[in-house]
């Protein structure tokens, strides 16, 4: 049974993350943790925008809180976001990974260890290499991996790198990702 979804996006990610989350039907409730490289943009403004369009509760992650149904957790700016074995969230101020903090790899890797095969990992648009190694760890631990089609993504480097490195389960256009999430969640 799918217990959590982790998602990562970089350049162009504000729009794509919104499309995936708002594409989920109102009876869909699996918790979602997101690392979005947002640069100097204000994450609070983005979260309240997303909140207006989604049935999910949208919030910034607080350390040691439990992942709950129907909630989207964003990594706070300048902190890595980690998922613990007991299904709680941790934050860290460790070194940047792939020049990023938060880094997608840190979320994906720790989620893979903790949620194992009950996890879906989704990597969207971006112009760096973050997330590829983490996606591979998700796959190795039995999770399902989805990468946005680099040909139609806003920026293709990140999905391209992930495809080369991790051989994901699905490569999809952005608009087809929500339906696949639902399908995978119902499969087991």
């Amino acid at each position: 049974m799918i217990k959590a979804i982790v998602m990562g996006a970089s350049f162009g990610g504000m729009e794509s993350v919104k499309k995936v989350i708002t594409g989920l039907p109102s009876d869909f409730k699996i918790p979602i943790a997101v690392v979005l490289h947002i640069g100097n943009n204000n994450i609070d403004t983005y979260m309240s925008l997303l909140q207006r369009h989604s049935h999910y509760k949208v919030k910034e992650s607080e350390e040691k809180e439990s992942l709950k149904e129907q909630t989207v957790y964003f990594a706070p700016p300048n902190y890595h976001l980690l998922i613990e074995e007991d299904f709680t969230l941790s934050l860290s101020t460790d070194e940047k990974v792939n020049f990023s903090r938060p880094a997608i790899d840190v979320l994906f890797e720790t989620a893979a260890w903790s949620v194992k095969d009950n996890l879906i990992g989704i990597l969207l648009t971006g112009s760096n290499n973050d997330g590829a190694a983490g996606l591979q760890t998700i796959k190795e631990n039995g999770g399902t991996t989805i990468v946005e089609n680099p040909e139609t993504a806003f920026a293709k480097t990140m999905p391209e790198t992930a495809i080369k490195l991790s051989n994901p389960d699905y490569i999809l256009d952005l608009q087809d990702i929500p339906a696949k999430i639902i399908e995978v969640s119902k499969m087991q």
Partner: protein
Amino acid sequence: MNQNNLATEDIELDLLLQAVNMKYGYDFRNYSKAHLRRRIHQRLKLSKLSSVSELQGKVLWEKDFYRIFLQDLSINVTEMFRDPDFYRLFREKVVPDLRTYAHIKVWLAGCSSGEEVYSLAILLKEENLLNKTQIYATDFNKNVLEKARQGIYTKRDMELFSKNYKEAGGKGDLSDYYTSKYGSVLFDKSLSKNIVFADHNLVTDGVFAEVNLVFCRNVLIYFDKVLQNKVLGLFSESLTKRGFLCLGTKESLRFSDYEKKYDIIDKKMKIYKKLPVTK
């Protein structure tokens, strides 16, 4: 790594932490597991080890390797005037109180390589408080403590630190406080004359002084709830009546055993003031 191996690794990790505690007296068992696992995986990769068990053997038998491993597990990323807003609010909301004290004692717990200690010392100096202040800066890691004591940092970092300093309401220029040489900077010894750098482990050591201010930012996030509570207890015991507690901006007394024992001075920047004990 498949799932079966992952479960085996869980056992290995528990055994490793137990071994480190038994042999060296450093107890990491209540640290964030995800964080530890990341650090340990990095070490496996760097030292080309195939399993946590192999690493455990080296940690137990090779003293030098153990020192490297301890370095891996300690928190060593910090910057001067990190979260400038915090320092601005500290000037505004804590300094006026500190001014009324005859002597100020500060405990900066988990000082790492010292960037925060020097930030605080500079702030107190600019407020003309440094001369009557005694700062205890502690960490369990002797290597970073030595670095903190020296007060030498790379010139490269000064760009960010100066920017932070300005945003934090610094009254001069950060370069007023250091001298540069060959890509390094040395902070003025007048800043550290009232600082005692000491080895103290938050997990296993107790109260060592009564202080007016505890400064412990971005350390508790690496601990589980049990250990967080224990350490917050240690701070509460150390603080004088109406003493201040400053945590990292993503840390909080909320949901801890000590929530009701403090006033919130600033909710966002996590500045707390201990309430007088009522019996």
